[in-house]
């Protein structure tokens, strides 16, 4: 993993928290490679109850937390390939101040912000290419990535040959056909295990702008983990908390708790039997109004919304044209439906048109070339791994031309896109009625759980009578529904404040700032400039682990994705931005990312860099 430079100097990293009346400063010393034993850092955060400021600015909850966090276990080690400590020009740059963020969020600043919109000069295609970036990988990095991967595999195979794997073996099943595919178990044992500590990390706090990791260490190279009993507080760049509604205090939590006390935690029945309440009906009406369509239907799990409703809409004689980067739940739904599925290249309108044209002109080869009963285009609003945004206006034009239907999965985009937070339809100022099936989840922007499908009354009635989830699966829990209802009303401004609008603007501003600063740093990011999902390409499998571990030592929690979730070539780190992040938090993260990418050699981009400071 490169040479660890133990000799490099330690640095003081400071966290300053303040509620405006006074500030408390605490610090934690972290050195490279080794974290000193028994060093503790005390954190204090002041909490003030949610206050409505006179100028209508966003209220901010500050948590009062007096917690001693022991930072004694070497749970996270930093990985450096180049010598030199973290060089911040001054202490201020290495810290973040929620108090200042408070000032930054004031009304004057928001006036300056303009939500992205098509200015009418460029064609949709030109605009898409201007705003979306998929920079090619440098050739030598590509070679290194493959070499690195093969090396990892070869080492794994040697390892498997030489040492008896320390895994659970099956008892009392001699003579049975082996349960697992050999490559699958090899991969998880000898490749994934090396970076296993970077995923499934347990947390013990609200997944808000910050989270608290439960530290764990491994004594046997990733086969098993042991908790150290310590906790690490991190800036959260991994959760899908786009609008910052994940919170244990405030209106959403209060109303959810009240609803739980009133209605209980569950209904122990499906909607069709004895699980239908006014609460569900109200939520459905609100969702329909939110999406700007006639009716909506809600389900208890986002994954199941796709997997269990697509089969109700499609049959074996239908054609589905699906984007190659669609989520696993869509793919499962299509598989269960038995429809013919054709895949088109990610966000390529040319390829989509080719597939549609072939579908219409040549018909169903399985059915002797008869025309397909119906053609459905399946796309996502924001593609969660690519950070790209669907080219909705062009797809709507194609859909009309070829008389296809459109299924739009807004799992990540609802709430996080558009001036009113109503998803990509709002962002592109398209007519929601042009999208036949609007699907989305409540897990992300609304800070709850579940999913919805919205559309015409005819469609929703059909789903009520045919959806698997509606008929068989449990009805959504009352506090979960209430969280969605309250957060949705806030976004829509039904509560009479512009908290929702401010959150949307804060997210859009955070997104642009973060993406531009990353481009300035010189790392390769994928996707659209307005997408709050920001994948940063690190390519090499080993670098995914290295970046995640190093960022954790600097108190930043991020998510990595590698093969098989992405192509072998495209290992990446994914940042998910949130309206809860302040400029100072982002600045802190960006400075650390700058330093880490310098050290680990992640500055692959060959694009010209903006020499001027990026304005927030």
């Amino acid at each position, binding site marked *: 993993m490169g040479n660890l430079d133990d000799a490099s100097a330690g640095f003081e990293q400071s966290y300053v928290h303040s509620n405006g009346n006074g500030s408390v400063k605490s610090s934690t010393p972290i050195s490279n490679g080794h974290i000193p034993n028994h060093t503790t850092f005390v954190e204090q955060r002041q909490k003030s109850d949610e206050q409505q400021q006179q100028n209508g600015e966003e209220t901010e909850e500050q948590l009062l937390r007096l917690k001693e966090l022991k930072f004694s276990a070497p749970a996270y080690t930093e990985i450096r390939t180049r010598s030199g400590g973290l060089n911040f020009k001054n202490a201020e740059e290495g810290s973040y101040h929620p108090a200042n963020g408070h000032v930054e969020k004031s009304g004057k600043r928001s006036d300056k912000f303009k939500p992205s919109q098509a200015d009418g000069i460029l064609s949709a295609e030109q605009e898409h290419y201007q705003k979306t970036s998929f920079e090619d990988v440098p050739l030598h990095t590509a070679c290194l990535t493959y070499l690195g991967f093969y090396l990892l595999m070869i080492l794994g195979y040697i390892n498997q040959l030489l040492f008896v794997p320390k895994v659970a073996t*099956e008892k009392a099943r001699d003579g049975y056909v082996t349960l697992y*595919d050999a490559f699958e178990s090899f991969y998880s044992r000898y490749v994934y295990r090396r970076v296993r500590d970077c995923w*499934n990390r347990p947390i013990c706090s609200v997944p808000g702008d910050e989270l608290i990791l439960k530290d764990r260490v491994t004594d046997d190279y990733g086969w098993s983990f042991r908790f150290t009993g310590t906790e690490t507080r991190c800036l959260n760049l*991994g959760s899908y908390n786009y609008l910052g509604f994940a919170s244990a205090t405030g209106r959403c939590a209060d109303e959810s708790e009240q609803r739980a006390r009133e209605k209980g*935690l569950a209904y122990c029945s499906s909607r069709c039997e004895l699980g239908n309440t006014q609460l569900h009906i109200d939520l459905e009406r609100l969702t329909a109004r939110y999406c700007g369509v006639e009716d909506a239907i809600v389900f208890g799990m986002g994954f*199941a919304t796709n997997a269990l409703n697509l089969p109700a809409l499609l049959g074996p004689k239908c054609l589905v044209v699906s984007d190659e980067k669609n989520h696993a739940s869509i793919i499962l739904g299509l598989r269960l439906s038995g429809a013919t599925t054709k895949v088109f290249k990610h966000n390529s309108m040319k390829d989509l048109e080719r597939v549609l044209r072939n579908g219409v002109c040549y018909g169903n080869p399985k059915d002797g070339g008869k025309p397909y009963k119906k053609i459905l285009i399946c796309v996502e609003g924001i593609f969660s791994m690519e950070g790209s945004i669907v080219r909705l206006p062009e797809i709507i034009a194609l859909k009309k031309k070829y008389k296809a239907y459109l299924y739009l999965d807004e799992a990540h985009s609802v709430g996080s896109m558009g001036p009113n937070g109503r998803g990509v339809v709002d962002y592109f100022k398209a007519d929601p009625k042009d999208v036949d099936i609007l699907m989305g989840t409540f*897990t992300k922007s609304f800070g709850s759980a579940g999913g919805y499908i919205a559309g015409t009354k005819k469609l929703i009635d059909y789903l009520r009578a045919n959806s698997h989830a509606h008929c068989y699966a449990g009805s959504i829990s009352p506090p979960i529904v209430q*969280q969605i209802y309250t957060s949705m009303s806030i976004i829509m401004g039904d509560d009479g404040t512009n908290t929702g609008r401010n959150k949307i603007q804060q997210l859009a501003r955070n997104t642009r700032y973060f993406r531009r600063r990353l481009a300035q740093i010189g790392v390769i990011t994928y996707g659209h400039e307005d997408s709050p999902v920001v994948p940063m390409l690190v390519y090499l499998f080993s670098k995914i682990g290295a970046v995640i571990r190093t960022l954790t030592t600097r108190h930043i929690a991020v998510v990595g994705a590698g093969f098989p979730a992405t192509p072998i070539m495209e290992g990446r780190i994914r940042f998910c931005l949130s309206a809860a992040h302040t400029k100072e938090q982002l600045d802190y993260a960006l400075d650390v990312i700058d330093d880490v990418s310098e050290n680990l050699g992640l500055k692959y981009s060959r694009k010209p860099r903006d020499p001027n400071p990026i304005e927030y």
Partner: protein
Amino acid sequence: MIGIQLFNEIGSIFRNTPTFALVLETLLLITVVWLLLHKRGGRRLTKEQQEYLIDQYEPEPLVGETDPEHPLLRTRLVQSKVGKRVVVDGHDCLNLASHNYLGFLEDNEILEEACKCLRKYGVGSCGPRGFYGTMDVHLDLEDRLANFMGLEEAIVYSYGFSTVASAIPAYAKRGDIIFVDEDVNFSIQKGLDASRSTIVYFKHNDAKDLERLLQEQEKRDIKNPKKAQKTRRFLVVEGIYMNTGELCPLPELVALRKQYKLRLFLDETISFGTLGSHGRGITEYLNVDRDEIDLISAGMEGSMATIGGFCVGSHFIAEHQRLSGLGYIFSASLPPMLTQAAISALDRFEREPQIFEQLQTLSQFVHNQFQGFTKLQLRGDKLSPVKHLYVAQARDNFETEAKLLAKVADKCIEKGVAVVQAAYLQDREHKPVRPSLRIAVNRLLTNDEVLEAFKLIESVSSEVL
């Protein structure tokens, strides 16, 4: 020189070959060339033809018309907290329909702990388990479940329906064979569909029929031993069947599993937390060693009165789902407060094992009473908290029966006993399911209340049927 020799050689070949052979070979050559060119050209349509076809294409509407009288559109409205009593469509009723077997929906202790958890973690988890969606409550629940069942590993899903539907395709793949009881619930059927394996249905709870099918399979295996070596075999059954209320003959199935080297998956959605002296399910009740079963799955939407589901098994088996269970990896994790509710329910299981006996005694009482209907026929095991009531005198088709039962249910609700018809998507089930009223027993019901319900249902059903 060599060139000329070669030329002469070729010339002699041509001269020596009989004419008919030459003609034949030339024809063959032409055919090959024609075929190649023809295929490449395909049924290529000109641009104009394509435009014409696109212009002419008329797809079917996205969805068909839905009958406004469709039974599934007519849902009832629950207007109160669900418990032993419930207000349905304005009528205060005794509840015989919610799957709240142990009465935990009304339990304030569980509610308080869940609310406390909400105050620590917020409502949603905002991420899948892999990406900071794992909270310490999830790990705690998994440990507790594994300990409770005496197995190595448990894995928690965020939706009851998706639990078994994700677990089956995590193991069974294309080319494998799954033997399944014909009356399994819809969630298992979807899991089977997703696995793309060969599905063999055996008669409901008929181990003999299963054995016959296994013997047939054995004969096929002898014919093709190479394929047999690669074919995994699974047996999927439910502890208590949602669709019939009957118990599976587990010891016989385990014996067959051993003999024919099958892997046994058991869905305990109803039997978990209801059967056995400690609520550990059908394995405890029938005294079957849990190691004999490869994977146990259960929903938490029944006796535990929360949302979600889980699978338990050996480390070797259950752990695999953390990388292959689609509903586990790609879905946001279970909201922490609902996870806490499950932990609190487990606390109650361990602290007050007498609740299971109470439930079982009551289920038996209900069973004995409900056998006495004149116009309705009871189905289900005496110990099962889920029982089905069918029309005693079978009608011509299921639709008529469904309409009659809907009438019975409506009238019962009007008069103060909530019973509902089991909802099925008849055309999507692998075989039509006979309509029934599904009774769910709640531990908190008293004998008097059961008798009262019996009298009411008896009078309504005699009147309607």
